[in-house]
Protein backbone atom coordinates (compact mmCIF):
# COMPACT_ATOMS: atom_id res chain seq x y z
CA UNK A 1 0.00 0.00 0.00
CA UNK A 2 1.56 3.27 -1.05
CA UNK A 3 0.61 6.79 -2.02
CA UNK A 4 1.54 9.04 -4.91
CA UNK A 5 1.81 12.61 -3.63
CA UNK A 6 1.71 15.54 -6.02
CA UNK A 7 2.89 19.05 -5.19
CA UNK A 8 2.15 21.89 -7.60
CA UNK A 9 3.33 25.00 -5.76
CA UNK A 10 6.81 26.45 -5.42
CA UNK A 11 8.34 25.50 -2.06
CA UNK A 12 9.44 29.13 -1.73
CA UNK A 13 5.83 30.33 -1.85
CA UNK A 14 4.02 27.78 0.32
CA UNK A 15 4.75 25.02 2.83
CA UNK A 16 3.01 22.39 0.72
CA UNK A 17 6.19 20.51 -0.26
CA UNK A 18 7.59 20.54 3.27
CA UNK A 19 4.27 19.44 4.71
CA UNK A 20 4.11 16.66 2.12
CA UNK A 21 7.63 15.51 2.95
CA UNK A 22 6.67 15.52 6.64
CA UNK A 23 3.60 13.39 6.08
CA UNK A 24 4.51 10.90 3.38
CA UNK A 25 5.27 7.34 4.37
CA UNK A 26 8.28 5.24 3.46
CA UNK A 27 7.77 3.71 0.04
CA UNK A 28 5.59 6.58 -1.23
CA UNK A 29 6.41 8.70 -4.28
CA UNK A 30 6.45 12.50 -4.35
CA UNK A 31 5.95 14.01 -7.80
CA UNK A 32 6.63 17.73 -8.17
CA UNK A 33 4.62 19.32 -10.98
CA UNK A 34 3.95 22.84 -12.29
CA UNK A 35 5.72 25.36 -9.99
CA UNK A 36 6.36 22.46 -7.63
CA UNK A 37 9.35 21.48 -9.78
CA UNK A 38 11.40 24.24 -8.13
CA UNK A 39 11.55 21.88 -5.18
CA UNK A 40 14.14 19.87 -7.11
CA UNK A 41 16.66 22.75 -7.22
CA UNK A 42 20.06 21.95 -5.82
CA UNK A 43 21.59 24.46 -3.37
CA UNK A 44 18.28 26.01 -2.36
CA UNK A 45 17.16 26.65 1.19
CA UNK A 46 14.94 23.59 1.09
CA UNK A 47 17.31 21.21 -0.74
CA UNK A 48 18.38 19.54 2.49
CA UNK A 49 14.80 18.81 3.51
CA UNK A 50 14.14 17.26 0.11
CA UNK A 51 17.34 15.21 0.13
CA UNK A 52 16.58 13.96 3.63
CA UNK A 53 13.67 11.91 2.26
CA UNK A 54 15.53 10.58 -0.78
CA UNK A 55 16.36 7.26 0.86
CA UNK A 56 12.82 6.35 1.87
CA UNK A 57 10.64 8.10 -0.70
CA UNK A 58 10.86 8.23 -4.51
CA UNK A 59 11.36 11.87 -5.50
CA UNK A 60 10.33 12.91 -8.99
CA UNK A 61 9.65 15.95 -11.16
CA UNK A 62 7.48 16.19 -14.22
CA UNK A 63 10.00 16.65 -17.07
CA UNK A 64 7.97 18.99 -19.30
CA UNK A 65 7.25 21.34 -16.38
CA UNK A 66 10.93 21.37 -15.38
CA UNK A 67 12.08 21.90 -18.95
CA UNK A 68 9.63 24.76 -19.40
CA UNK A 69 11.23 26.48 -16.42
CA UNK A 70 14.79 25.83 -17.52
CA UNK A 71 15.49 23.30 -14.80
CA UNK A 72 18.06 21.10 -16.50
CA UNK A 73 19.53 18.11 -14.71
CA UNK A 74 22.65 20.06 -13.71
CA UNK A 75 20.50 22.51 -11.72
CA UNK A 76 18.61 19.77 -9.88
CA UNK A 77 19.31 17.45 -6.99
CA UNK A 78 20.68 14.16 -8.28
CA UNK A 79 18.24 12.37 -5.94
CA UNK A 80 15.27 13.59 -7.97
CA UNK A 81 14.16 11.56 -10.98
CA UNK A 82 12.22 12.74 -14.04
CA UNK A 83 9.05 11.38 -15.59
CA UNK A 84 7.06 12.44 -18.65
CA UNK A 85 3.26 12.54 -18.90
CA UNK A 86 3.05 8.79 -19.59
CA UNK A 87 5.23 8.20 -16.56
CA UNK A 88 2.82 10.33 -14.50
CA UNK A 89 -0.05 8.08 -15.57
CA UNK A 90 1.98 4.97 -14.73
CA UNK A 91 2.67 6.36 -11.27
CA UNK A 92 -1.03 6.91 -10.66
CA UNK A 93 -1.78 3.30 -11.57
CA UNK A 94 1.12 1.92 -9.54
CA UNK A 95 -0.04 3.49 -6.28
CA UNK A 96 -3.11 2.78 -4.18
CA UNK A 97 -4.15 6.40 -3.91
CA UNK A 98 -3.11 9.87 -5.00
CA UNK A 99 -2.90 12.77 -2.60
CA UNK A 100 -2.61 16.31 -3.94
CA UNK A 101 -0.84 18.92 -1.82
CA UNK A 102 -2.42 22.19 -2.95
Amino acid at each position, binding site marked *: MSTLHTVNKSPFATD*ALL*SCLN*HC*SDGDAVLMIEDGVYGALANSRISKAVQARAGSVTLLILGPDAQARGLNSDKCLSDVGRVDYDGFVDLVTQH*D*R*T*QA*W*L
Partner: protein
Amino acid sequence: MSVTKKFLYVNRKAPYGTIYALESLEVVLIGAAFEQDVSLAFLDDGVFQLTKGQDTKGIGVKNFSPTFRALGDYEVTKLYIEQESLDERGLTKDDLQEIVYEDEDDDWAEKPSIRVVNRAEMAAIMADQDVVLSF
Protein backbone atom coordinates in the same frame (compact mmCIF):
# COMPACT_ATOMS: atom_id res chain seq x y z
CA MET B 1 -25.28 -0.72 -0.78
CA SER B 2 -21.84 -1.08 -2.28
CA VAL B 3 -18.64 -1.55 -0.31
CA THR B 4 -17.87 1.24 2.15
CA LYS B 5 -14.67 3.11 1.40
CA LYS B 6 -12.54 5.26 3.64
CA PHE B 7 -12.58 8.89 2.55
CA LEU B 8 -10.27 11.50 4.05
CA TYR B 9 -10.80 15.20 3.42
CA VAL B 10 -7.49 17.00 4.00
CA ASN B 11 -7.86 20.66 4.99
CA ARG B 12 -4.72 22.79 4.86
CA LYS B 13 -6.04 26.32 4.26
CA ALA B 14 -7.31 29.06 6.54
CA PRO B 15 -11.06 29.73 6.29
CA TYR B 16 -11.76 33.05 4.51
CA GLY B 17 -8.74 34.02 2.39
CA THR B 18 -9.58 31.42 -0.24
CA ILE B 19 -12.67 29.39 -1.07
CA TYR B 20 -11.02 26.02 -0.30
CA ALA B 21 -12.28 25.65 3.27
CA LEU B 22 -15.92 26.37 2.46
CA GLU B 23 -15.80 24.20 -0.65
CA SER B 24 -14.38 21.34 1.38
CA LEU B 25 -17.15 21.61 3.96
CA GLU B 26 -19.82 21.65 1.25
CA VAL B 27 -18.35 18.60 -0.45
CA VAL B 28 -18.26 16.81 2.91
CA LEU B 29 -21.94 17.61 3.54
CA ILE B 30 -23.01 16.54 0.07
CA GLY B 31 -20.75 13.49 0.09
CA ALA B 32 -22.21 12.38 3.43
CA ALA B 33 -25.28 11.17 1.52
CA PHE B 34 -23.19 8.32 0.13
CA GLU B 35 -22.69 6.79 3.59
CA GLN B 36 -18.97 6.17 3.36
CA ASP B 37 -16.44 6.06 6.18
CA VAL B 38 -15.55 9.75 6.28
CA SER B 39 -12.79 11.47 8.24
CA LEU B 40 -11.58 15.07 8.14
CA ALA B 41 -7.95 16.07 8.66
CA PHE B 42 -6.92 19.59 9.69
CA LEU B 43 -3.25 20.46 9.44
CA ASP B 44 -1.07 23.45 8.59
CA ASP B 45 -3.32 26.54 8.21
CA GLY B 46 -6.34 24.22 8.11
CA VAL B 47 -6.41 24.27 11.91
CA PHE B 48 -7.53 27.92 11.72
CA GLN B 49 -10.88 26.69 10.34
CA LEU B 50 -11.86 25.37 13.75
CA THR B 51 -10.90 28.27 15.99
CA LYS B 52 -13.44 29.84 18.34
CA GLY B 53 -14.73 33.38 18.08
CA GLN B 54 -15.00 33.78 14.30
CA ASP B 55 -17.22 36.71 13.35
CA THR B 56 -17.44 37.62 9.66
CA LYS B 57 -19.98 40.44 9.88
CA GLY B 58 -17.34 43.00 8.93
CA ILE B 59 -16.15 41.26 5.77
CA GLY B 60 -19.49 40.39 4.22
CA VAL B 61 -19.01 36.65 3.90
CA LYS B 62 -20.81 33.83 5.63
CA ASN B 63 -19.35 32.55 8.90
CA PHE B 64 -19.40 28.81 8.33
CA SER B 65 -17.63 27.82 11.53
CA PRO B 66 -20.96 26.88 13.23
CA THR B 67 -21.59 24.39 10.43
CA PHE B 68 -18.78 22.14 11.68
CA ARG B 69 -20.97 21.47 14.71
CA ALA B 70 -23.65 20.01 12.43
CA LEU B 71 -21.29 17.38 11.00
CA GLY B 72 -22.36 14.90 13.67
CA ASP B 73 -25.91 15.01 12.29
CA TYR B 74 -24.40 13.99 8.94
CA GLU B 75 -22.61 11.09 10.64
CA VAL B 76 -19.23 12.71 10.16
CA THR B 77 -17.71 12.18 13.58
CA LYS B 78 -13.93 12.00 13.09
CA LEU B 79 -12.10 15.33 12.91
CA TYR B 80 -8.35 14.82 13.23
CA ILE B 81 -6.34 17.90 14.21
CA GLU B 82 -2.55 17.88 14.06
CA GLN B 83 -0.82 18.86 17.30
CA GLU B 84 2.32 20.18 15.56
CA SER B 85 0.24 22.48 13.36
CA LEU B 86 -1.44 23.90 16.49
CA ASP B 87 1.96 24.31 18.20
CA GLU B 88 3.53 26.09 15.22
CA ARG B 89 0.71 28.65 15.33
CA GLY B 90 0.75 29.17 19.09
CA LEU B 91 -2.63 27.49 19.45
CA THR B 92 -3.87 24.84 21.83
CA LYS B 93 -6.90 22.60 21.75
CA ASP B 94 -8.66 25.18 23.95
CA ASP B 95 -8.55 27.67 21.08
CA LEU B 96 -10.75 25.36 19.01
CA GLN B 97 -14.51 25.23 19.22
CA GLU B 98 -16.02 22.20 20.86
CA ILE B 99 -17.52 19.79 18.35
CA VAL B 100 -19.49 16.79 19.51
CA TYR B 101 -21.73 14.19 17.96
CA GLU B 102 -24.61 12.30 19.48
CA ASP B 103 -24.24 8.55 19.33
CA GLU B 104 -27.62 7.20 18.27
CA ASP B 105 -26.56 3.69 19.31
CA ASP B 106 -25.62 4.86 22.81
CA ASP B 107 -28.83 6.68 23.86
CA TRP B 108 -27.70 9.88 22.06
CA ALA B 109 -24.70 10.23 24.36
CA GLU B 110 -22.57 13.24 23.41
CA LYS B 111 -19.05 12.34 22.35
CA PRO B 112 -16.19 14.55 21.13
CA SER B 113 -15.60 14.64 17.37
CA ILE B 114 -12.23 16.41 17.61
CA ARG B 115 -9.22 14.14 18.03
CA VAL B 116 -5.81 15.77 18.33
CA VAL B 117 -3.11 13.59 16.79
CA ASN B 118 0.62 14.04 16.25
CA ARG B 119 2.30 14.25 12.87
CA ALA B 120 3.25 10.59 12.71
CA GLU B 121 -0.33 9.59 13.57
CA MET B 122 -1.62 11.97 10.89
CA ALA B 123 0.71 10.40 8.33
CA ALA B 124 -0.59 6.95 9.29
CA ILE B 125 -4.21 8.11 8.97
CA MET B 126 -3.47 9.43 5.47
CA ALA B 127 -1.80 6.17 4.47
CA ASP B 128 -4.83 4.19 5.65
CA GLN B 129 -7.40 5.69 3.22
CA ASP B 130 -9.01 4.52 0.02
CA VAL B 131 -9.54 8.06 -1.22
CA VAL B 132 -7.86 11.31 -0.18
CA LEU B 133 -9.48 14.60 -1.19
CA SER B 134 -7.38 17.72 -0.75
CA PHE B 135 -8.51 21.27 -0.06
